[in-house]
C-alpha cells in the first residue's frame, strides 16, 4: 500500500488527484471504485482495447505487479460528491437510470451499477463522476472506440440512447 501511495502521489496525482478525486473533468474520479474494476481497466489500456494517448504510455511504464495495490489504494479513498447544475435534466436522468426505457430496450443502469451508483467489482462506480467524462465515455462506447471486453454490453446500451438521454443520466450521476 505504501508503494501504491507513492505512485499515486508522484504519477497519478497530476490528473486524478492524490486521493483519486480529480478536479479536472477531463479525468475520471477513481476514488471508491472497486479495486478489481481499476485493475481490469489498467489491463485494458495495456491490451489496447481502451485507448488514450495520455494513459497508455503512463500505464505501460508502470509495473503490472503494482496494479493490485493501486486498485486497493484508490478503492479505499473517500469519493467526493458533486452538484446538479440542471435539475430538470437530472430528474429525467434519474428515471432512466432507475427504470430504463422498455420501448427502446434500454436497461435500467441501476441493474448493474446499483441503485446508489456505487458500482460493484465488475461495474464502475458512477456516483459523483464528472458529467463531461461520463458523456465522453458513452460516446466512446457508442462509436466503438472503447472496445473493452466487458464493454460489449455498454456499447449496445449507448447505441440505443440519444445524446440528450446520455446527458440527462450524466447530469443525475454527477450530482450524487
Amino acid at each position: 500500500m505504501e508503494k501504491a501511495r507513492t505512485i499515486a502521489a508522484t504519477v497519478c496525482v497530476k490528473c486524478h488527484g492524490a486521493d483519486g478525486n480529480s478536479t479536472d473533468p477531463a479525468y475520471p474520479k477513481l476514488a471508491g471504485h472497486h479495486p478489481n474494476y481499476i485493475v481490469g481497466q489498467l489491463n485494458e489500456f495495456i491490451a489496447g482495447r481502451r485507448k488514450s494517448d495520455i494513459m497508455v504510455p503512463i500505464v505501460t511504464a508502470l509495473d503490472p505487479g503494482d496494479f493490485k495495490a493501486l486498485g486497493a489504494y484508490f478503492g479505499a479513498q473517500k469519493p467526493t460528491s458533486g452538484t446538479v447544475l440542471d435539475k430538470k435534466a437530472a430528474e429525467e436522468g434519474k428515471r432512466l437510470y432507475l427504470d430504463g426505457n422498455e420501448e427502446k430496450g434500454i436497461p435500467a443502469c441501476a441493474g448493474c451499477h446499483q441503485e446508489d451508483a456505487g458500482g460493484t467489482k465488475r461495474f464502475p462506480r458512477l456516483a459523483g463522476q464528472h458529467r463531461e467524462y461520463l458523456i465522453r465515455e458513452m460516446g466512446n462506447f457508442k462509436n466503438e472506440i472503447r472496445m473493452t471486453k466487458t464493454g460489449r454490453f455498454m456499447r449496445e446500451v449507448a447505441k440505443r440512447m440519444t445524446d440528450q438521454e446520455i446527458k440527462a443520466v450524466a447530469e443525475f450521476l454527477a450530482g450524487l
Partner: protein
Amino acid sequence: MKMLLNGLLVVWSSWLLAQSPAPSGAGADPAWNEIKGEKLLALRLKGDPARGAEAFEICQGCHKSGATGSISGVYPRLAGQHATVLIEQIVDIRSSRRSNPKMKPFAHEQIVSPQEIADIAAYLQALPIPPNLGKGPGTALARGKELYARDCATCHGDRGEGNGEKFFPLVAGQHYKYLLRESRLIRDGERGNANPDMVKVIKSYTDEDLEAVADYMAGLAPP
C-alpha cells in the same frame, strides 16, 4: 475431414447425453428441439445459484431485481421458471432461433458464457415466485379455462406448472401481456423456436381465444 469431425461431434454429444438422464424435449418432432452444441453444454454443466445471482446482475436492468419482469409484459417474469427452459430460451435467442432482436446483443457469448447461463438458470429456478402481478382483465376466464383444459394442460400441466424435463415452460402467474404477445407470435409463426405441436393446436385460435387463455394462465397461482 468435415464428415469425420461431424461424426466425432455426434459421438461426443451422445457421450455427454449418456452421462446423465439429460432432459430431452424432442417429443414428436425431434427437429423442434435438437439438443446440441452449447445448449447441450449448458444443460450438462452444473449450475451454481450463488454464482448465478452475481451473473444475473447484467439481466436485472430489464428483468428486474428478483426477476419479476414487468407488468407491461415487455419483460417476462423469470423467477421460478424451469432451468432447462431458461437455458433453452437464452441459447435460442443468442443463436437467433428465437427472434428477439432487443435481447440478442445482451446474450452474446462475450457477455454470458455457457457456465454463466447454467448458473443464472439455477439461480432463477430457485427464486421465490412473486404473487401474480400482471393479471388480465378477468372477463373471459371461463372460456379461457375451457380452452386451457382442452388444449394446453397436457403439456403445461393442470396448474400451469410446465415440465422442465420436456422444456415446457411454467406459465402460471406469468404477466398477462407477455403471455398474450408470445402466444400471438407463436400462432403467427413469428417466434422462431415454437414447438410445432403447439403451433398446430393454436393456429385456429382467434385473438379473443388467445386473450381468454392468457387471462386464465395469468390468474393461475404459481406453485
